[in-house]
Each structure stands twice: as structure tokens, then as C-alpha cells.
């Protein structure tokens, strides 16, 4: 079969993205070659749930300007150019604010005196490993504390994925902004996890807008089913969005998660449910 990339997203934090991504990956791994990529680089959790051996780690760095004050004439071109206000000129020197820099290299391009040298700053690491039973590959990013720029690290995580693995499952971060876009761009299908509460529905609507705008195939998983109300179901029905799985709200499931134990490892009937869910998604992908 053709390699397929599925992202698991959902506007709301804590709605069960990681639970769905991890359990689906574990359920499929005995049948196909599978890798899971944790793109929630601010707070990655996949590696906590999958017992694994770490195999490699590589730092990810971005362009960071180094101002050579012997060459700098304080002309201010870089200051004027920088869209992010990361460079400020004071009477006799240049001040640089690393946390505002996007690493575009514009300052280096516009400097007429070659006073801006191309340095680098590490923004985080990407790590790769394999599950203890050897059947599931795992890649995740870890953003350095205090570093605001998640998207370039997310891209590094995605580039570290093996392109001929049968199934790649991406665990996306919460929200609907740039880190989410970086995580789901170009995937074959997005699974949107939600919970049946007004907050879950509110954030689901937002993320549905994102995936529609991006023209991606998508479906919904209702987590904590039985909790709250039925408005998520009527929304999906009215909008013709397929619900491919429901995970009920059960204390036992929450307890397992709290101990970092994936559902499918102790409740094996769930393995079949996640495989079925994947098959529904595969149909959706083929159907376009």
C-alpha cells in the first residue's frame, strides 16, 4: 500500500489527541510498519506513553545574526528592515533581541558592510527511538525552555520521519495557529479529537475551519463520550463530518492514562476498534 500520513489534531487542549495517536499507532504496528511523530514540541507526551529505547538525538538550530561591531557603521538598515523589531539602535551600538527574531536572515541581506554574520541558535532537539518490542518507531521534538519558535522545530520533526513507512501518525499540538499548521500541512488526513462539551464544540468548529481552508480530508473522534451534551454530534451530522470513533468517558480509561499506560495494552478489544477506525480513515483518504 501507499504510505499514508495521518495527523491527530483538535483545537482544545487535553481533549485526547495523544491518547488517540498513541493507541492507533500501537494497534496498527503489529500489522504494518508504523511511526509516530510528536509535533507538540512545547509539551510532548507521546514518549511518556510508549516504552521505548532512544536511538538518536540531534539539535535543531536557526539562523541568528552576529553583529560584527568592527564593520558596523550604525547605518540602521537592518533595524529598518526587521519586521519583528528584533534589532534596535542605541546611540553607539546595536541591541539584538533574540526572542523576537524569526531567523529570516533579512538583516544579513540588507547590511551593506557585511557586518551581520550568520550565526546559529539551538531552538530544541529532535529525538528518535523505537518501542521496546521493536515494532513502532517514534520521533519527537523538545523545544528549549524560553524558546518561542515552535514551527521550525516541528518541521524538523516531520523531516526526520521515514518517508516509506506504511503509516505515519502525527500528534499535533492544541490550538489552531502556526504550530498546528506546521504539524498538519500536506498530510493525507486529519483526525480531529473533541469532547462533547460546549468548549469542545467551540474549539472543534475552529479547527474544522482550519482544515477546510487547507483543503484536507478530515474526520472526528469523540473522546469522553457520554459526558456533556449532544451538540457535537448534531454539528457533525449537519456538516457531514464522519465520526470514526467514540471513546467513552470511563474512570478506568482516565486512570490508565494518568499512569501513562496506553488503553490498548490492557484492554485489547480497543485494538480492534482503533484498527477499524484506521480502516474508515483509509476509505476516506482513498475517496478523496
Amino acid at each position, binding site marked *: 500500500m501507499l504510505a499514508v500520513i495521518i495527523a491527530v489534531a483538535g483545537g482544545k487542549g487535553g481533549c485526547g489527541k495523544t491518547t488517540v495517536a498513541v493507541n492507533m499507532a500501537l494497534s496498527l504496528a503489529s500489522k504494518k510498519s508504523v511511526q509516530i511523530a510528536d509535533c507538540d514540541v512545547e*509539551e510532548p507526551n507521546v514518549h511518556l506513553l510508549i516504552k521505548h529505547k532512544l536511538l538518536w538525538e540531534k539539535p535543531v538550530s536557526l539562523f541568528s545574526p552576529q553583529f560584527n561591531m568592527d564593520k558596523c557603521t550604525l547605518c540602521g538598515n537592518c533595524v529598518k528592515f526587521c*519586521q519583528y523589531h528584533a534589532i534596535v539602535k542605541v546611540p553607539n551600538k546595536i541591541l539584538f533581541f533574540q526572542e523576537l527574531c*524569526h531567523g529570516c536572515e*533579512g538583516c544579513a541581506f540588507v547590511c551593506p558592510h557585511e557586518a551581520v554574520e550568520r550565526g546559529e541558535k539551538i531552538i530544541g532537539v529532535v529525538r528518535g527511538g523505537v518501542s521496546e518490542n521493536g515494532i513502532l518507531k517514534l520521533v519527537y521534538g523538545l523545544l528549549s*525552555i524560553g524558546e518561542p*519558535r515552535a514551527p521550525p522545530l516541528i518541521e524538523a520533526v516531520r523531516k526526520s520521519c521515514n518517508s516509506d513507512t506504511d503509516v505515519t501518525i502525527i500528534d499535533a499540538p492544541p490550538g489552531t495557529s502556526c504550530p498546528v499548521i506546521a504539524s498538519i500541512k500536506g498530510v493525507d488526513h486529519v483526525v480531529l479529537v473533541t469532547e462533547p462539551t460546549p*468548549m469542545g464544540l467551540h474549539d472543534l468548529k475552529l479547527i474544522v475551519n482550519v482544515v477546510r481552508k487547507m483543503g484536507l480530508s478530515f474526520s472526528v473522534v469523540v473522546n469522553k463520550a457520554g459526558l456533556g451534551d449532544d451538540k457535537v454530534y448534531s454539528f457533525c451530522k449537519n456538516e457531514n463530518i464522519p465520526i470514526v470513533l467514540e471513546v467513552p468517558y470511563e474512570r478506568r480509561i482516565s486512570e490508565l492514562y494518568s499512569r*501513562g499506560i496506553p488503553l490498548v495494552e490492557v484492554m485489547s478489544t480497543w485494538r480492534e476498534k482503533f484498527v477499524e477506525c484506521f480502516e474508515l480513515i483509509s476509505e476516506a483518504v482513498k475517496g478523496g
Partner: protein
Amino acid sequence: MVRELVVISGKGGTGKTSVSASIISLASSTLKLVAADCDVDASTLHVLLKPRVKQEEKFSGSKVARIDKGKCIKCMACQSVCRFDAINDLGVDIYSCEGCGVCAFICPVDAITLEDRDSGRIFVSETKYGPMCHAELLPGESNSGKLVSLVKQYARKIAEDEKRELIVVDGPPGIGCPVISSIAGADLLLIITEPTMSGLHDLRRAINLAQFFRMTKIFVAINMWDINPEMTTEIVKACADEKVEVLAKLPFDKKVVDAVVNRMPAVEFDSTSPFSQEVKQLWDSLFSLLST
């Protein structure tokens, strides 16, 4: 002086907004406050506080490049200098473009211009608890940190103009740019966690972030603590190691979900529920911390 209480969580879904809304409800009976929802890309505080929007403004988070096909000579210079891989086949991928302007600078025929992008809206509203500032980032837009800063600026302005005593900020999950913007200038940081392995892992990173920015008044509340008492003990220990005080252990309480479904802060939906009672004590502790 206006004090600022910021509520964050590291991990999403730990109950930040439910706790914030209850704190706002309790605080408003003794203090004049301003509420601010800084979770701009998935804001939900308004679901519970039901604000009436009084003022609305457009927000442009950044620029976006536009290529004039008529002028373009297909030299590909723009495509090769773009650090964000935002130009493909001489078309701008608006989701990748960060509006830096390097392409416009390098273009030999001035075929590229930078335009303001429409990134979202910012609102000033009225609630029964006091004014509320909130925002809505358009789907897929970037620069949420800048929008968060704006929401906080508006909240501070209102607080100063109306001589209000407290700003309660409901922050976003994570530790990236919108979180950094949310905690900037906070007098008191409350981190809501849950007794799960991920909750603990993410809490540590959130605490380290606050310490990185040299915050000293960092406090923790463990929500749904009784789902896993052993993990709660572990979190209490981890907090002690970081020299961070655990102010409250809030019980798992179905009433909190019922309150959300009924679109009310939990303390108003049922003021005697176990959760409400603990939140009241949490607010009392926060109040005395804010008063010192």
C-alpha cells in the same frame, strides 16, 4: 496598584478555564477586576462568562508577501532566499510566509510587495464580573504572541482607567510564544495541573519556563487530584523540589462538567459542590498572596 493573576497549565485540558472562571466569579464579589482570555487560538473563557461585546477591532499580526505575476521575470531569487519555504512555483503559501520581506528585498524587478494580513479580532466586552478583553485569531494565523500582548495591553489600560484592582488572565496551554507573552508582567502565576504522567511532565516544563523568566510567585493547583492519588503525591514532591507551593488540590467533580454544559462558572452552578468548596479556599489563599 493593579495586580495581575495569570493562570496557565503547560498541558491542555487540565481545567484552566474552569478554574479561572470560578476565580473570576469569586474575586468579583470583593474586588473590581478585569478578565482577560489570552488563549487566543482556542479561547473558551467566553463560553462561561458570556460577555457582551462592546468594542471590536481588527488585528494584523504580520505582513504577507504578494507576487505581481505581471512584473515577475521568474528569476527564482525569492524562492531561493526564503527561509520559510513559503514560495513554491512562484506562489506564496500564506500559511508559511512570515512576512519578513526578504523576497521583496531580493526581487530585482520589484514584483513583490508586503501587505498587512488580516489575522483576527480583539474584543472589549462587558460581563457581570467586570470588563473582559478577549480575542479571536483567524484559523491558521500566526503571531498569537503579539495578539496576547495586545489583549493584555487592553486589559491593563481598562484596569488603570477604571481604577480596577485585579486582572485575571486565562492563559493558553504549552510553553511557546503565546504563553511567554501571557506570563510577562504577572504578579502571581497559578499553574493548573492534573495527576497524570503528562500533567507532571508538562508542569515541570511550565515551572521551568516561569523560572527562566525569573518569576518568583509561582503556585500550583492540582485539579482532579483524586483520579490518581499516588501521582498527586508525586506532583507535590516534584513541586517541593522546585520550591513551588501547591496551593490547592481540587477534587474530580462531575458538577464541573455540568457547569460547562450550562455555561456557568462551577462555583455559581453549584456553590456547595466539593470542587466549589476547594476553589473558594484556593481563592482565599490567592487573595492573601495578592494582598502582600
